[in-house]
């Protein structure tokens, strides 16, 4: 996880690890635990899946406060990105930080709210496609559909 964070900021993050999942929680919340082992503890930051760290939106929101590695998009770009499409130059409001191909960027809407993150794949001044999504909030729709199916199956 720390490797992922270092791509965006030098700010230190103190985290709890539960099995393969990472969380950020206040010391006050720590005092509220039950005797049993919890599954979810404070702000969910992400998890290791097959030795790869997969960030959660809690971490991306946190990074948005401390990182300059941001691409701000117009509302049309916002919708495209949330539906898993690559961002095009005409979608971009402004770019902060690194502009080199291969770098990871936080994708923000006009209110500086995080939509996910992506990788630079083109020159912002020349190329049409510039950011390829790595993770976007549209994933919640897919998860909700899956949860509903599982939930109705478990009721049977």
């Amino acid at each position, binding site marked *: 996880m720390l490797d992922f964070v270092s791509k965006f900021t030098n700010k230190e993050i103190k985290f709890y690890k539960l099995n393969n999942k990472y969380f*950020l*929680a*206040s010391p*006050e*919340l720590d005092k*509220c*635990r*039950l*005797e*049993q*082992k*919890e*599954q*979810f*503890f*404070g*702000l*969910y930051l992400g998890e290791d899946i097959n030795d790869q760290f997969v960030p*959660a*939106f*809690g971490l991306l*929101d946190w990074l948005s406060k401390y990182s300059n590695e941001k691409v701000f998009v117009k*509302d049309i770009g*916002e*919708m495209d990105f*949330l539906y898993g499409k690559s961002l095009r130059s005409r979608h971009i409001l402004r770019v902060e930080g690194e502009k080199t191909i291969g770098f990871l960027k936080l994708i923000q*809407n006009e209110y500086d*709210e995080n*939509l996910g993150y992506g990788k630079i794949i083109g020159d912002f001044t020349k190329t049409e496609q510039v950011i390829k999504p790595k993770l976007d*909030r*549209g994933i*919640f*729709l897919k*998860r*909700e559909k*899956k*949860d509903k199916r*599982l*939930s109705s*199956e*478990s009721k049977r």
Partner: protein
Amino acid sequence: MSYLTDRYKEMGGEVKFIKPRRCIRVNTKKISVEKLKERLEKKHVELDKVPFLKNAFYVKSKFNLVSSPEYLMGLFYIQDAASQIPAEVLNPKSLTLDMCAAPGSKTTQLCEKVPVIAVDSNKDRFKAIENNLERLGIDNCIAYLLDSREINKTFDYILLDAPCSGNYILEDDWLKKNNLKRIQERSYLQMELISKAISLLNKNGVLVYSTCSLEPEEDEFVIQFALDNFPVKLEKIDCTGDDGLTKIFGKKLDPTLKYCKRLWPYKTNTIGFFIARLRKC
């Protein structure tokens, strides 16, 4: 006419199929009520404040709100108005236990005010809690995949939104699918759960019990059982709905049961609901 339909007449209600008004709750951990209203109105969503709730709007939209950036960003939760009442009625001031938490609508609502211990025993439904906690950016909840009857810590505030048989607005053919035996089975589980909830409550602590059932066996009879067996008393609730029943099916119940609220869909434009607020003496 089903047997259950006839019973509703005796309760002073009736079966009238309505479509509950679509309702959202603003996630005030992320955005103010005014700002979200402004943003959605820019997208031509019609918003109408719910008069009996703090942070809720009835909504009308030409597009599916679930696919909007504001929903995906966790700025609001789509939640029936009736289902938002229990957390408001509990009005917690400190750490709160949500005993049957999935899918997390009331948990995330409570988290706007206080830290929450959320518990649910269903592995599949638990995933929905995790998903909602992440989407809404909640940072003050500890969630356990656990049968709430295994908890051994005490609390000043507990929400028990008990598993129930549901009501005829929620499911097609509900009246055909349900019967008194199924309702009675639920009632036994609810009595077990309320007994446990009261045992986990500190003295002077508050328990809100709710269901989306309109059957007295799952509502007033469960509360009567609690009043008969434990040191608790009912408190008045200031919200929409009819008073709880004090006499039904030939049984005379404690007169304070009128402090409970039952929401008939055709009267409140919500799903069917029952809410009681108990304080431990």
